């Protein structure tokens, strides 16, 4: 495995980041229970990636969500919206209390992130394969306007089924978009089956490398390592960066981990209690 080495700074932060990730998971579990909404396991799978991005890497100011110089983070796997909403609320883009309105009538927090409605949401996603092309357009805007922000796109492994992902991958490499970073949440499951038994993704790092990306495999639950790798964008290779993050679907809750029923299932009150206890939350 081509694992990125961790810096001392990231090591020092690691404990705090771990606690943040646990809080994030707790909020997502609460939201899934309250709304009886699907995609809990997909949200838990990427909680550490979101934590690394929002608490360590991104150059963002929740008070200036439209700042032209901000880094862009696109949740291309829009079905993990609950994780994004919880992240944005915890960062202060909108009140934590609004998380209680997830999937409620008349609210802003739909099951997939909306367009031009909620501060901090860079793009409306939910249909897979859209985030990276959008991100490439954003990155080129920065180049044309001489703004040096970075663009991160979080993709699911199932999303790599979409042809538009690979169109964008070739485009980004041809345009040498070295300020673009893709993180693939490689939890080995898609909605109804094992990813590699559906469409063959493996060897996924090699595929991204063959498409002209500086591609690395990484432990998608090592917040410090994720933070380090995502911080090193651009990394001097002149290529866009792909981080193939090995993850566990449902990560953090023993009875959800690697059980694909939790792609659609929402937890009962009792399961919420057990899950929160496992996460070290009250």
């Amino acid at each position, binding site marked *: 495995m081509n694992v990125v080495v961790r810096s001392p700074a990231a090591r020092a932060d690691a404990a705090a980041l771990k606690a943040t990730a646990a809080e994030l998971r707790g909020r997502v579990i609460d939201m899934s229970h309250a709304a009886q909404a699907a995609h809990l396991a997909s949200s838990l799978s990427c909680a550490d990636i979101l934590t690394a991005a929002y608490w360590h890497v991104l150059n963002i100011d929740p008070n200036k969500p439209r700042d032209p110089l901000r880094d862009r983070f696109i949740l291309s796997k829009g079905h993990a919206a609950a994780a994004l909403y919880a992240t944005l609320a915890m960062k202060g883009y909108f009140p934590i209390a609004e998380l209680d309105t997830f999937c409620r009538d008349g609210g802003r927090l739909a099951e997939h992130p909306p367009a*031009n409605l909620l501060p901090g949401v860079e793009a*409306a996603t939910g249909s897979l*394969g*859209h985030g990276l*092309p*959008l991100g490439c*357009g954003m990155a*080129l805007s920065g180049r044309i*306007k001489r703004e040096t922000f970075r663009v991160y796109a979080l993709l699911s492994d199932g999303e790599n089924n979409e042809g538009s992902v690979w169109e964008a991958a070739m485009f980004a490499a041809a345009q040498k978009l070295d300020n673009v970073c893709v993180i693939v949440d490689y939890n080995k499951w898609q909605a109804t089956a094992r990813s590699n038994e559906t469409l063959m993704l493996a060897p996924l790092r090699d595929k991204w490398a063959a498409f002209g990306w500086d591609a690395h495999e990484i432990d998608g639950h090592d917040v410090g390592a994720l933070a380090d790798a995502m911080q090193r964008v651009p990394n001097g290779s002149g290529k866009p960066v792909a981080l193939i993050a090995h993850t566990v679907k449902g990560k953090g809750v023993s009875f959800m981990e690697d059980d694909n029923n939790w792609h659609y299932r929402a937890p009962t009150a009792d399961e919420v209690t057990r899950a929160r206890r496992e996460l070290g939350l009250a």
Partner: protein
Amino acid sequence: MRNAFADELTRLGDEDSRVVMLSGDIGNRLFDKFKSRHPTRFFNCGVAEANMMGVAAGMGMNGLRPVAYTITPFVTTRCLEQIRTDVCYHEAPVTIVAVGAGLSYAGLGPTHHACEDIAFLRAIPNMVVVCPGDAHEVRGALRAALRQDRPVYIRLGKKGEPLVHPGPLQDFEIGKAITISDGEDVCLLSTGTMLPEAVDAARRLQEQGISAQVVSFHTVKPLDDVRLRDAFSRFRLVATIEEHSLIGGFGAAVAEWLADTATRPAKLLRFGTPDAFFKKSGEQEYARAELGLTGHQLADKIVHALQRDATP
């Protein structure tokens, strides 16, 4: 039309540093001038239209004014979801320019025909649909589109179409139809590439003593409500003329408008392509003739309709 588009785009690129050109690997040499003047704002996106449309949306969401261009089916139906979700849902100011409207590329076969695009695109919220009738309208439409700060679809023919307007249109406005010639008996509402056929039809009707008003109804969405009210109240017969399917196109839009509007005395006659792929080889003129869309065929059918109406 496409040369006028490339030329006007170059001018607009000179005037506005936000204008970016995205091509789906077509237009060899067509954009040389734009490229030489604005090398950092031209992108050949390859044969990857879904990505091109997403990239255009990303640019539009970040302050630029991208123009995405390729052959009609590939820049519309091929990447329809990107148009809907990336461009229109985000209200990204992307101008989509399609070349080869209707049967412009008849000879290339049905893969390159485009008789359904208006139907698909006008159904999408936030989208504006403009079908210029000649090269002057192309220039006006492109200039107006880039002032809109919202998604716009512009549907071009190919090259070498006859000019209908005598000169540049200083006051071209999206959503405001243009009178080409006035008349008393029937009103010909033409959209896009069919405008020269409509003009020809009016001339032939005149020879038979029937006075026809010709209107270039370049904007299919939003419809020019004032102009439609005028047409349906003043004339015995209103005809819509388009190089597009009768399902979902301009004529369908006018029929919807008519159904939703207080009854008008005029009769509506719709000309367009049938619900079928045109599989025979042959160029645009041949295809139009086979489908009854040439000026004299339109005139004959209008005369017939008037006679039928007159029969007690």
